[in-house]
């Protein structure tokens, strides 16, 4: 379980997070929605320790994240980055097996390669892709490789940062389906940030809407459409008019 309470983060005068309280139950898939620049990515990065919050606590299974051993803490996470964030200098299989080739959980090269190929197959890529380099892949394939890398070490918690951004609707649908299947079959706790409502309906058990640095609304995805919150309604229906001021 991930429990955030009173999370604050500012960059200079820009107060991005202003007291975020959010709980993601174990094994559930939480999707955080919100407009561009509302701090969704900062929220994920705070949990992972990539950005240091100014105030507030992050608890994973009841333990304060700040007090945990960093390597052991990160070993429990997998993350799919928005642009894939694949390492250009390494082949596809070395990207997928990155964690398996280094550090405490290091495996022999042949075994790591085998696991990488199996994970690639799981995300719908053929073994021939294994020896290509990221620059030789299409955007959709890069996302799949990123997904394979995120799940390679069988993490308990997986983060997805804008998993469908930049993909055509069909490829976006494929990625959404893959994420849902993988999260269910691994029994992982998932946290996704997106502004793609198709993604939300495909991936989420629960939804939280981040606006003005706080969680504006949170609840099960099935309650989302009927919720009276005007911010949420404006966002999910993509209306230009409403309480959220649009910048033109």
């Amino acid at each position: 379980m991930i429990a955030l309470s009173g999370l604050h983060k500012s960059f200079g005068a820009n107060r991005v997070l202003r007291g975020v309280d959010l709980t993601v139950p174990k094994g559930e898939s939480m999707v955080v929605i919100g407009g561009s620049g509302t701090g969704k990515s900062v929220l994920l990065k705070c949990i992972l320790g990539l950005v240091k919050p100014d105030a507030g606590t992050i608890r994973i299974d009841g333990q304060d994240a700040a007090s945990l051993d960093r390597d052991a803490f990160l070993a429990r996470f997998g993350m799919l980055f928005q642009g894939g964030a694949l390492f250009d200098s390494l082949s596809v299989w070395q990207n997928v097996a990155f964690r398996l080739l280094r550090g405490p959980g290091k495996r022999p090269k042949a075994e790591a390669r085998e696991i990488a190929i199996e994970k690639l197959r799981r995300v719908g890529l053929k073994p021939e892709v294994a020896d290509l380099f990221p620059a030789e892949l299409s955007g959709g394939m890069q996302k799949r490789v990123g997904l394979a890398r995120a799940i390679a070490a069988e993490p308990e918690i997986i983060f997805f940062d804008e998993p469908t951004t930049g993909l055509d609707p069909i490829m976006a649908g494929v990625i959404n389906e893959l994420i849902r299947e993988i999260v269910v079959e691994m029994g992982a706790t998932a946290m996704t940030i997106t502004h793609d409502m198709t993604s939300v309906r495909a991936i989420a058990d629960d939804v939280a809407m981040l606006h003005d640095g706080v969680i504006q609304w949170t609840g099960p995805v099935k309650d989302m459409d009927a919720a009276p919150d005007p911010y949420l309604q404006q966002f999910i229906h993509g209306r230009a008019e409403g309480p959220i001021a649009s910048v033109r």
Partner: protein
Amino acid sequence: MILAPVAAIGRSTLGGLAALGRIAIFLVATIAAMLRPPFYFREFLQALWAIGYNSLPVVALTALFTGGALALQIYEGGARFNASQVVPSIVAIGMVRELGPVLGGLMVAARVASSIAAEIGTMKVTEQIDALVTLSTDPMRYLTVPRVLAATIALPVLVAVGDSIGILGGYLVGTGRLELNAAAYLKTTVDYLTLWDVTSGLIKGAVFGFIVALVGCYFGMNSERGAQGVGRATKSAVVTASVMILATNYLLTELFFSA
């Protein structure tokens, strides 16, 4: 209004000093990362290849032409004092003490500091550095330490090669164009050169290599977003590394040779 130019000088001085301070903090973090395992040997070998071996042609060509030009200049200048016979020894001393390490350092700064800053900067803006952290890999140990160590080891070797080729350049011009006696040229070169002349140049090379990679990594790691951010990081890395090499060269020369 009148004070505006003074204020601008003050601002840029303070900005420069602040950057120097941040590089110093980065230096301490790099040394701390060197002392803790794991050590990424494969990345070190790759960096050694990219920084050392691939810089050989540019360093060799620079040294060859500089040695040749130096021989011509000393011959012309020496003729004013009837001292043209000093060409071999001055070419040798000039190359190994000063021009070999400084020009080698500057060429490597242009070639390597830029490529390191652009590579790491691109990794930063495409979130590859964040990805490294989430995969339990410290970017300082994985990216910075191998490059800094490789450059510190590679540059003295490059300087040694550059010194030899520079002296050869002087020899070719001296014996071919200026009609100096070949045997006498070689004998004078060897007789007047001391071991300290050579080793002081190699030590300078090691220091310059350390600076080049450290500055390249620093600006890459602190690159701002977008193509412009990476471009700025690359430019700043080359300019800062070059100025630091020249300034450090003066300090080391003062330290090594002032009586």
